[in-house]
Structures are given as structure tokens and as C-alpha cells.
């Protein structure tokens, strides 16, 4: 029977979607900014890793030691130098500016790297598998990817609820002007949140690029997956986001098993069904 296998693969890719989604929901939660360029920044991280592997002969997973800090710096600078100026009572300016950013990143990557499909080579680890049961196999790489996703989500949860920085993020999210009265420089807090978001998607981008082909145009579809995982899981809950990613991943895997053309459609249908039945998501944060 292939179904257990299908569901297992869906769960494992769900971890990747959860990482896409965690960065997006973090930014929206803290500063009400909908980052349309989120998917393209994931792809940008993949290309940064590609450059690192080519320049230093690094293994893609090792390249994370470079890609994560680079993307975090990009995030900080982007927020401080551009996006902070778009924030205000109106949701539209950041939406438009990040939409423009998305176009710029896609075309910049196209100019630099052409439209050719690339893939990062992680070596032997890519084909290593373990047998769980008679007909159930699990790949080393998807397993590592899922474990990393769970660790990232757990780390974010700890950061939010157990550290002074997390407290400052939550306070800023609640009430920006009172946060300033408490001595918090919200421009800096926002920039740190964007740095954190891009550090998370740097990890996601590298795993994406190891498991599948990528080219400069695949960003917007990753953005959709991130949106869907956030909304399925419910805004404001990190574990909900992980559940949302897994539900999306499993739906896509089941759809693909029925008919390869149904992979994306199945994910979208489940998303729409949840949006219709439970618009607040499955695990929304209890509002104060």
C-alpha cells in the first residue's frame, strides 16, 4: 500500500512550507506588513547558497553558516532602509512596495543567473534512505529538513515567549506607540524582526534548492504556499503554522498521488475549504 508513504512524504515537505510560512507570519504579526516579495526572497536565498557552493566548494547545508547571516543582514537593511518608510495606518504602501521588490528581485536574478533551472547538490545524503516498515521508506534529507523545521519553529516559539527580545516583539505587535514609550526603538525592532524572518527563509530556501530545481520565477508560488500554511494554521501561533504546513503538504501529496496534475489543486482546495469553514484557521492565537 503506498498511502502511508504518500502521507509521510507530505508531512515531511510540510515542514518546509511551515518554514516559508513562519517568516511571513512573523512579519505580519509584528508590523502588519504583508511581504509580497517573501517568495522571491526565499529564491534569493537559494541563489546566495548557489554562489557560496560555487565560490567555496561548500556543501549546500554547510553554506547555511554564510547564507543565514547574509540574508539576516539583507533583511535588516531592507527594513531599515526601505520598508520602515512604508509603514503607517495604511496597509497598501508596504503591499505595493514589496510587490515592486518582488519584480526587482525576479528580474535581477534573471539578469544574473539566466532563466536556467538550477539545483544544489548535497551529495550522498540526497539518496540515503531508511526503511521504517516493509513498504515504508524515509529519505535522510527530507527527514533532516523536517527535523530542522521543527527545531526552527520551536526556537521561534522559545524566542517569542522566553526572551526579552521576544517580549519586545510581542509588545510592539500589541501597541507600537506604547512600546516606544517603554524605550523600545520600533524601527530597530522591525528591522530585527525582518532579519529574523529572512534568517528563517534562508534555511527554507537552501532546503528548497536541494530537494528540487529552482529558477528566478518560482518565488510567487512559494509565497502562495506560505500564505496558505499561515491561514490554515491560524495567525499568531507558531505550532499552528507547522500544522498548517503539514496539512498543505499532505493535501498536495494526496492530490499528486491521485493524479499528478492535482498536486497544487488539492492544496488550494483544502486551503479554500478551511477558509470557508474556519476562517480564523485551525489554531488561532487566543486574542487578548
Amino acid at each position, binding site marked *: 500500500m503506498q498511502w502511508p508513504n504518500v502521507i509521510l512524504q507530505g508531512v515531511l515537505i510540510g515542514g518546509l512550507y511551515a518554514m516559508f510560512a513562519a517568516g511571513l507570519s512573523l512579519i505580519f504579526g509584528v508590523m502588519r506588513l504583508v511581504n509580497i516579495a517573501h517568495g522571491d526572497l526565499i529564491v534569493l536565498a537559494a541563489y546566495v547558497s548557489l554562489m557560496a557552493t560555487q565560490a567555496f566548494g561548500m556543501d549546500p547545508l554547510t553554506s547555511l553558516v554564510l547564507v543565514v547571516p547574509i540574508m539576516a543582514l539583507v533583511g535588516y537593511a531592507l527594513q531599515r532602509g526601505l520598508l520602515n518608510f512604508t509603514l503607517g495606518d495604511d496597509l497598501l504602501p508596504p503591499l505595493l512596495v514589496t510587490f515592486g521588490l518582488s519584480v526587482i528581485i525576479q528580474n535581477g536574478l534573471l539578469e544574473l543567473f539566466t532563466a536556467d533551472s538550477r539545483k544544489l547538490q548535497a551529495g550522498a545524503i540526497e539518496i540515503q534512505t531508511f526503511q521504517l516498515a516493509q513498504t515504508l521508506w524515509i529519505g535522510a534529507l527530507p527527514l533532516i529538513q523536517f527535523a530542522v523545521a521543527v527545531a526552527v519553529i520551536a526556537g521561534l516559539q522559545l524566542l517569542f515567549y522566553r526572551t526579552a527580545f521576544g*517580549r519586545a516583539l510581542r509588545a510592539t505587535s*500589541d501597541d507600537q506607540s*506604547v512600546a*516606544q514609550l*517603554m524605550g*523600545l526603538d*520600533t524601527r530597530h525592532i522591525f528591522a530585527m524582526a525582518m532579519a529574523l524572518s529572512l534568517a528563517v527563509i534562508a534555511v527554507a530556501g537552501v532546503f528548497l534548492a536541494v530537494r528540487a530545481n529552482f529558477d528566478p520565477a518560482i518565488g510567487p508560488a512559494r509565497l502562495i504556499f506560505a500564505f496558505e500554511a499561515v491561514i490554515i494554521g491560524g495567525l499568531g501561533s507558531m505550532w499552528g503554522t507547522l500544522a498548517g504546513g503539514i496539512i498543505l503538504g499532505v493535501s498536495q501529496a494526496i492530490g499528486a498521488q491521485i493524479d499528478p496534475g492535482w498536486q497544487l489543486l488539492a492544496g488550494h482546495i483544502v486551503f479554500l475549504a478551511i477558509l470557508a469553514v474556519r476562517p480564523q484557521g485551525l489554531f488561532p492565537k487566543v486574542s*487578548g
Partner: protein
Amino acid sequence: MPDGPLLKISAIDAFYGDFQAIFGVSLDVGIAQVVAVIGANGAGKSTLLNCIAGLVHPSAGEILFEDVATTNTPAFEAQKRGIALVPEGRRLFPSLTVEENLLIGGQSRRAGPWTLARVYELFPVLAERRNLPAPALSGGQQQMAAIGRALMGNPRLLLCDEISLGLAPIVVRDIYSRLPQITAEGLSLIIVEQDIVQALHAASHVYCLQEGRVALQGAARDLTREKISAAYFGV
């Protein structure tokens, strides 16, 4: 130590959106002095406090705090210099616990007498409820938490915006009865109030604002009810 008053406001104008809320207001606060600012709704009291705290920047005039201009200082820097505001309506962070709200106030790590333990000593009920989410507190307890949160920054000047708003008189008296413990540390206080009796009782100096201008000021003991109602209502 500065020679002048702790806070010296000279002829500031300020806008609330497109609407001019403050016209040429001047005000002094000495070290360890309690000053009350009274006035009707819309008299510009909150805008005045927001100017001092750095949330609103005056379009004209000057604000000196410890002899340094803070006219255009952003709020987060004003807090680090020692100005704390207890905002109108308390505005605790709803997704944080009571203790987390207090800790946020102390995050700037200014040195001084106020610690979590001291705030709990001042308001013991907060210690009992430290792990509850802030919205679970009663109005009076929320006001205590908002005052405690501001104190955690160890300010030299504490601005209290309508701390009696929406609270039962007995709760208001309870909170006001603890102000001497706060000012005992050499802290200066500006209290904005609509409750004139409370304000006159707590403060040594009173400013009455009317339509954005200082209509009356003087030592609290010299002001009669008649003078105040004339300034308050402009009759």
C-alpha cells in the same frame, strides 16, 4: 546637577493631526515637585504630555529636560533619559502577562530604586496576579500595572494621564494614597486630571488649560474653586 527646573517648557505649539491642540504653553516642573494639569476634555492636556514624552513633536517652542533640549527627541530616547508616561486608558500590552508588562518597562535598564520587587511591594495585588494576562486585571489593577510599568524605567519625571479615568472613587483614592511612596524617591510628577479635587490634593502647583492655552496657574493652596471654574469653563 542642573541649576534650572527638571523640566522647562517654553511657549510650545503642537498639533494633534491637523488640529492645533496647544498654543504657546509654558510650564516648569522642579525636582521632586508634583504638578497637576487640569482642564476640560479637548483642552490639550494629553497632547501636552505626549509632547513631553516625545510621541508628539512641538511645531514651535522648546522643551528642556535636565537642561538638555528634548523638543524633537523620539519617545524611546526620552524614556531612556528618564521621562515615563502612564498613558490615558492604561494601554497595557494585552498579549503579555502582568509581569511581562512590568519587565518591558524595565528593559531600558536605567539604574534606580525601582525593581520588580519594589513595584510588587508598592502594589501587592500585582504580585499575586503576576502570571495572568494583563486584560484579566480589574481596571484599578490595570492602572497599578501601568504605573508600575512606567516606574520600572526608573524615570526622573513621571507623567500620569488621567489615572482616575473610569475607576471607582475608592480605587482612585487607593492609587493616589500611594503617590507619596513614589515621589519619596525624588521623582517629579505631572498628573493630568479631570478630577480636580484629587489633583489639587496631590499637587503643589496647578496649571489649568483651556482650549490649548494656560488659563490659570499657581500654587495649589492659593487657587480657589471660583478661580478654577472660571479658568476651566472660560466663564
